[in-house]
């Protein structure tokens, strides 16, 4: 690999820009392709189609071509987790999610909660949840979790999340709280298919009690949605 390519790749990764390193496995020649910007960048049709699929599936792969193997190394930006409610559970959840490779944003309009001190190294927004979510624009590589228990904060965030491609939507609250939440969202016009996307009560049932344990159960459920087809 040429050093110039490595340097550019590192810069792209730091800038969270999606890039694919295309390497000819016979010669070692490399090429950087930006799927979101310049499409296939002169690659032949088969390779271009494989590249699109690799980026979409977030999976690097080797493609056999008449000229030998070509490796498509996908460097997608980190997956994202948006946490609404800078509450106690949010602290371990945000830290664990960073370890698992997520770019974490915590949203809470209540200034005292959303302090940078409680979430070192993470993005903390004090916007209203629907404004923040609309700006962050959750996509298929984004998980959204609401933790405030407060319908004024949770519901607007859920409404944006349910209208997005977020691969995971979860909402903290007991069965009773969740039933009431679903009823409010039903009144707001959401159908059962949309409501079924909300994981609530949030997290896998592992008997979690402490904030950190609850964070484990939530992150486990997010992982399950990401890595398996269990929906």
């Amino acid at each position: 690999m040429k050093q110039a390519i490595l340097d550019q790749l590192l810069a792209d990764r730091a800038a969270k820009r999606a890039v694919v390193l295309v390497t000819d496995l016979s010669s070692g020649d490399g090429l950087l392709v930006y799927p979101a910007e310049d499409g296939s960048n002169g690659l032949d049709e088969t390779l271009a189609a494989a590249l699109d699929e690799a980026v979409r599936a977030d999976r690097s792969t080797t493609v056999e071509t008449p000229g030998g193997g070509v490796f498509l190394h996908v460097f997608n930006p980190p997956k994202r987790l948006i946490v609404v409610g800078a509450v106690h559970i949010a602290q371990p959840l945000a830290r664990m999610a960073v370890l698992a490779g997520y770019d974490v944003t915590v949203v809470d309009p209540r200034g005292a909660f959303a302090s940078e001190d409680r979430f070192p190294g993470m993005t903390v927004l004090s916007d209203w949840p629907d404004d923040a979510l609309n700006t962050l624009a959750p996509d298929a590589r984004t998980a959204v979790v609401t933790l405030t228990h407060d319908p004024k904060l949770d519901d607007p965030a859920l409404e944006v999340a349910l209208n997005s491609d977020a691969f995971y939507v979860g909402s903290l609250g007991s069965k009773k709280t969740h039933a009431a939440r679903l009823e409010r969202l039903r009144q707001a016009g959401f159908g059962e298919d949309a409501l079924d996307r909300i994981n609530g009560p949030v997290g896998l049932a592992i008997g979690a009690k402490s904030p950190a344990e609850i964070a484990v159960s939530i992150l486990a459920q997010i992982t399950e949605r990401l890595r398996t087809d269990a929906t």
Partner: protein
Amino acid sequence: MSKDLNREATTSEATNHEATTGEDWDNVLEQAARWKAAGKGVALATVVATWGSSPRPVGSQLAVDDAGGFVGSVSGGCIEGAVVQEALETIADGKVRLLDYGVTNSQAWEVGLTCGGKVQVFVERLE
């Protein structure tokens, strides 16, 4: 050039403040760039294909310096020693290498994957 393959990866400085992807705990590419900038010979090993049960996904990387120090992983530790040796050859001769490891490999008795899977590893010098 030392071939002391038992040497642990030595550099952990400056890694705390860099973005990790969650699948790249060692910031392998950043370390490769730092070694290169320090004037060392550097090779990169990348898992380019896997079959069956394999410990690390396609795209996993190992960076090796010319003293045999390394960061990252291409398996659960089963084949790193052998890959580092090939990487040292690559640093020396500049030729890319495509290596197969698995239970069917003739070297399985010494560097096979106990999980029964197969991996293909591409090794290249950082030019």
